[in-house]
């Protein structure tokens, strides 16, 4: 089986055009029939995704309640995104979530894989891989329901705190102004730690053992070995992990909707929720579209920046 490029590299583009396979001339047919083959997929894509994206940009320049007539709004919606306290906060919250969803799991994952770097060769690894990955496939609505009960007054978290004598810290986490956002962030950490661990361990498995041998001969300790060999070789995996987790943090909607609806107050409001709420509840479709555009731009910009970490395919 040929080596597949990780998803995220293709998204960003540099050097994508060439395959990793040796550069033999692939026999390609010039054919108008190709358009026929591509058309159905492209039509569905354009009609239900492509065109609406362009329309979102269009909507963002109007004020519309979704029912009656719309009025031109110039860039006032975009101005609101940056000046309205509640909207600004929602982006700040998304940033906080990025720390929990992405930074923490990646760091912990790297640290752990350095620690148990040779675990990938164990026979039981396949079992662990399955279990660690399991949270990723559960619907977020179900995960939200699970964690609501964990964070409740008599839920698992408070039970544990009471067990170790820290009862004074127990509270209803999702209703607490200071901790609600962190509580949601921790769900993301839980979700993504397994993913990062699996990714990095398998990446380590791909590193040629000779490199380690050479380092050992040179007298390098584990720390140096990690920094000099492991980390650079994992650049691809780190990029994938960061992309998946950062984007999931920014896209957070389901979790906030089910657990807190943006509350208490505005403590857990996030851009995706604000866009939905304003488009379909409070009748501010133009503003919602502007929020959606800004969110998308942020996501794309971050994805592009992260891809720079990944090694170029020609390496």
């Amino acid at each position, binding site marked *: 089986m040929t*080596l597949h*490029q*990780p*998803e995220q590299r*293709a998204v960003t583009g540099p050097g994508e055009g060439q*395959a990793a*396979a040796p550069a033999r001339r*692939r*026999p390609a*047919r*010039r*054919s108008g029939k*190709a*358009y026929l083959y*591509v058309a159905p*997929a492209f039509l*569905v*894509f354009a*009609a239900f*995704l492509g065109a*609406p*994206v362009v329309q*979102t940009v269009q909507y963002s320049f109007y004020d519309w309640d979704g029912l009656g007539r719309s009025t031109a709004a110039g860039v006032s919606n975009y101005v609101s995104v940056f000046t309205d306290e509640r909207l600004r906060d929602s982006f700040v919250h998304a940033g906080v979530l990025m720390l929990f969803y992405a930074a923490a799991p990646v760091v912990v994952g790297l640290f752990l894989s350095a620690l*148990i770097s040779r*675990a990938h*060769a*164990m026979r039981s690894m396949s079992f662990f*891989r399955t279990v660690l990955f*399991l*949270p990723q*496939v*559960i619907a*977020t609505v*179900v995960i939200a*329901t*699970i964690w*609501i*009960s*964990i964070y*409740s007054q008599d839920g698992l978290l408070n*039970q544990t705190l009471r067990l170790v004598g820290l009862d004074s810290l127990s509270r209803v986490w999702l209703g607490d102004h200071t901790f609600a956002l962190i509580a949601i962030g921790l769900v993301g950490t*839980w979700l993504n*730690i397994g993913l990062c661990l699996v990714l990095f361990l*398998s*990446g380590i498995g*791909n590193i040629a*053992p000779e490199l380690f041998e050479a380092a050992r001969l040179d007298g390098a300790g584990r720390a140096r070995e990690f920094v000099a060999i492991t980390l650079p070789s994992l650049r691809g995996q780190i990029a994938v992990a960061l992309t998946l987790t950062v984007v999931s943090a*920014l*896209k957070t*909607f*389901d979790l906030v*909707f089910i657990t807190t609806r943006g509350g208490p107050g505005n403590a857990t409001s996030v851009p*995706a929720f604000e866009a*939905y709420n304003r*488009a379909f509840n409070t009748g501010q*479709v133009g503003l919602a579209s502007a929020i959606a555009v800004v*969110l*998308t731009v942020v*996501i*794309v910009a971050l994805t592009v920046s992260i891809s720079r970490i990944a090694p170029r395919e020609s390496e």
Partner: protein
Amino acid sequence: MNVSRTERIVNQLILVVFALFAVVPLLGVLLSSVTPASQNSGGFAIPDAVDFGNYGAAWSRGNFSSYLLSSVLVTAAVVILSVVLATFAGFAFARFDFRGSSVLFYLLLIGLTLPTEAFIIPLYFNLRTIGLTDTYWALILPQTAQSLAFAVFWMRNQFRGFPGEIIEAARLDGCSDLRLLWRVVVPPSLAPMMTMAVVITMWTWNEFLLPLVMVVSDSRRTAPLGLALFQGQHLTDYSLLAAAGVMVALPIAVLFFALQKRFINGMVGGISSR
């Protein structure tokens, strides 16, 4: 590589700790779902009596029989549609040379990064204008569009890696492009196509925002949406909610256990293990 015993034990220990960390909440919901409602206050506890009645209540009273059926319908349609359309398109991108192929391909790829919010607002109003909201098509077609970005990329990769000699040989034999694709190229590629299919299945099954906006009638609600609204009415009915949650998550979890490798490979874009 020789792994010393101590190192193996340490490795196992760390992995066990994190495996537990990942699994305890899920174990908790399973236990909660069979706990009699009166005993359940939301904590992690092993019930002294096992009550499967919660599942029955969720199935009938909670209407989950209908919700699950809707999910199956929509997911199956999206997977079939995506696989077929992406096979055609991926083959064309991989094996044909035509003007604009790069541009078209990159347009599709952009779809991978876009959040649902980037297009759902106008999509809703467009579909409302043509009267398609609150139909299964309103769920199937947009999700197919979303899956296509991934699917076309995936299939193009597969077909690029396909041995050129076989294709040449078939063409020399006078094989038409259509036959070439479905009779020659696809059969050996079924395994990666399967990988793609399970990933699309998972994404579609778990989708929440799109049904939340598009679906109005109770009869067309998909499982995650049904769970969300069910939860709003039974905020502290932990046993009932747990049972409903298990029902919604179980199909994908079962699929996952059966096809673990495919899932993991597919989701992270595939890095072959040695």
